[in-house]
């Protein structure tokens, strides 16, 4: 994809700064966001749309939680693990959150090495990110298993409002799906980086478009978004 290479054939007039600059850019020639490639613009707009999806999920959950007339199960007790004979509240979720946030770090490093065209390090860091993501999903599966064995179902649970289980499985399930899709695409992009597709401009199998190292960054945008959403789920579901 060569469309992001800015091919200024003449000199550009200086752009005004501040708000005026924003207005001038938006109304300007050819592209509203200067220096933003098509792929990156598309990912940002998709993430905006996805934000609305997660926003609606979380708002619905909050509506259910504040309008229920039976008690809401206490997250500190429900999400506790018995380790060495002691109930430690929220320990699993703390580890999960740590793992996922760490994966954002490795992703950011992968983007950096990608722009230096360091194929090996980029691919390794992306695979590490994917591994951390898979670990997260694995621990989520463990958490689901534990809750199910304790009798939590989408339609009810032993401790209180039925919506607890419904919201929990729906929201974490939807987020987990996002992480899983991210892991799959991380592996695909890492494979392409490893093979050197972005150095030789090899056309994609389905799209027949040539990829560039910027794809690593676009992948990263998605990954950081999934992390950020998790922070909100963590805050609203586990800490409330």
């Amino acid at each position: 994809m060569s469309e992001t290479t800015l091919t200024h054939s003449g000199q550009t007039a200086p752009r005004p700064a501040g708000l005026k600059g924003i207005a001038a850019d938006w109304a300007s020639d050819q592209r509203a966001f200067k220096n933003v490639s098509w792929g990156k613009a598309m990912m940002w707009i998709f993430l905006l749309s996805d934000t609305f999806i997660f926003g609606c999920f979380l708002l619905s959950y909050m509506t259910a939680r504040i309008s229920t007339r039976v008690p809401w199960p206490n997250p500190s007790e429900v999400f506790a693990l018995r380790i060495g004979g002691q109930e430690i509240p929220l320990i699993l979720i703390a580890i999960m959150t740590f793992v996922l946030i760490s994966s954002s770090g490795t992703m950011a490093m992968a983007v950096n090495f990608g722009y230096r065209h360091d194929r090996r390090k980029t691919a390794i860091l992306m695979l590490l990110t994917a591994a951390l993501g898979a670990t997260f999903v694995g621990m989520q599966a463990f958490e689901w298993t534990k809750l199910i064995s304790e009798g939590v179902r989408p339609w009810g649970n032993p401790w209180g409002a039925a919506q607890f289980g419904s919201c929990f499985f729906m929201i974490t399930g939807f987020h987990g799906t996002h992480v899983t899709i991210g892991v799959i695409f991380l592996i695909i992009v890492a494979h392409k980086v490893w093979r050197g597709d972005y150095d030789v401009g090899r056309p994609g199998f389905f799209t027949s478009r040539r990829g560039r190292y910027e794809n690593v960054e676009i992948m990263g945008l998605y990954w950081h978004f999934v992390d950020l959403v998790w922070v909100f789920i963590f805050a609203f579901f586990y800490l409330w």
Partner: protein
Amino acid sequence: MVDITPADAVPPAEVAEMELYHPHSWWTKYVFSQDAKVIAIQYSATATAIGFVALSLSWLMRLQLGFPGTFDFITPEAYYQFITMHGMIMVIYLLTALFLGGFGNYLIPLMVGARDMVFPYVNMLSYWIYLLAVLVLVSSFFAPGGPTGAGWTLYPPQAIMTGTPGGQDWGIILMLASLILFIIGFTMGGLNYVVTVLQARTRGMTMMRLPLTVWGIFTATVMALLAFPALFVACVMMLLDRVLGTSFFMPAIVEMGEQLQHNGGSPILFQHLFWFFGHPEVYIVALPAFGIVSDLISTHARKNIFGYRMMVWAIVGIGALSFVVWAHHMYVSGMHPYFGFFFATTTLIIAIPTAIKVYNWVLTLWRGDIHLTIPMLFALAFIVTFVNGGLTGLFLGNVVVDVPLSDTMFVVAHFHMVMGVAPILVILGAIYHWYPKVTGRMLDETLGRFHFWVTFLGAYLIFFPMHYLGLIGIPRRYAELTDMTIMTESAHHLNSFISIMAFIVGFAQMVFLFNLIWSIRHGREAGGNPWRATTLEWQTPQTPPAHGNFGKDLPIVYRWAYDYSVPGAKEDFIPQNVPGNFGLSKEPA
């Protein structure tokens, strides 16, 4: 030609040429095509086909309402299924898909001067997922229990209960699955439309030189990307309620003397989610119509659009405001009175930008060189119809007026005028306008005029009497209107009259369909620019435009889209890609 200064400086290229995917076989050229124009035709054909299904359903409904008790096969259950599928198909699978998937795909790349959408492969997937959504929807007609009869708003709890057709069968599941697929497919297309408009315009095509058609479709797509998520979430949650037995929307409820398993859910939550999507949806359908009609009027009145900047800001303003009015659909659902106050206020504020648009259309016509071509007739019909439907919207936007009128035929008349008939008139006008570009031939003029007058007058004869029926209190969504004291003798006659008109208008659409197919081969040769229009799609080297749209070099834009009848110019129109500074152009600085 007088007063011409040398050609404008060519702005430097910021966007390099895109690499086009070149199809190698018949399959990749015409079926699994990545060309936005082919995808547009696929979208339009599918939407039209499913639209005719919805049209037939409306006939069946009118058979029952106009002549109650005559047709045994239309049971109350069947009637509810017809009404539900008619509404859902018309709003989502016809109007949304045709305006954005059809016109959006065809016109955006051509009008902004791009070779194709930015991600043709994703664009292609968008159509195939849309087709899958339509097939899932159609399959519910053949599923056990038939399609859902929950009403197009699918309000819980009734939508998933035994008494509603399809509630405990496959109907509602297939409906929700189909909507989820539609939203996924639409998102893929919508991202393409938005990024193409923002980032892939040709040289000289600033945002404020875009034809209003593009502005309308662009704003509507942005709105759709933000509004459809609410419907997506509502569909997922209702699907879980129905399949897994969760209680998101289901309160504790007794059905046929039996306590259901559900407990503690909120039906109102569904209404909020649904209308947070549903109200922007009205403008998702209306804004492309606004844009297209502006271009039709300007072109066929040979005059620049009046107040271009105001038109753009009105489109954007309507789009933004439409996100804060949704609960005016819920005045009778049980809300805090102050909510009603807030939503009534915001609703009435929308009338301001809308009125600006109407005035500007009329001022564009004023002292114009009006050619009463078929697209122009449809555009004029749209203005009248939209004003009519919009005014009844002011009635219904007020809480005190809405409460007695709610759930009557008045509401049916209102929304059919404003978001049924009005956008469809624009779609028809737009098809007459752009058909020559798509096929290279004109649609037949005589059949076209017949089609216009029957559709326009017929639609009024259908929906005008409905206002009266609503005012005397005839409820909507009743399968039989026989044994009610408010059903006076004259109301019965009016009902039969409405039904007969509905058949006639429907028949006129068959004539239109015939015209569409017949003219592909037998229409008059159109040439590249039969309407002598300025926008880029009429300046392509080939008609219909070839793969890549513009031949070897992309056009360079030197002016806005509305240089009609510029004093001193040789012709009464100056295409956007013609250089030269005509001092008397009305382009805003």
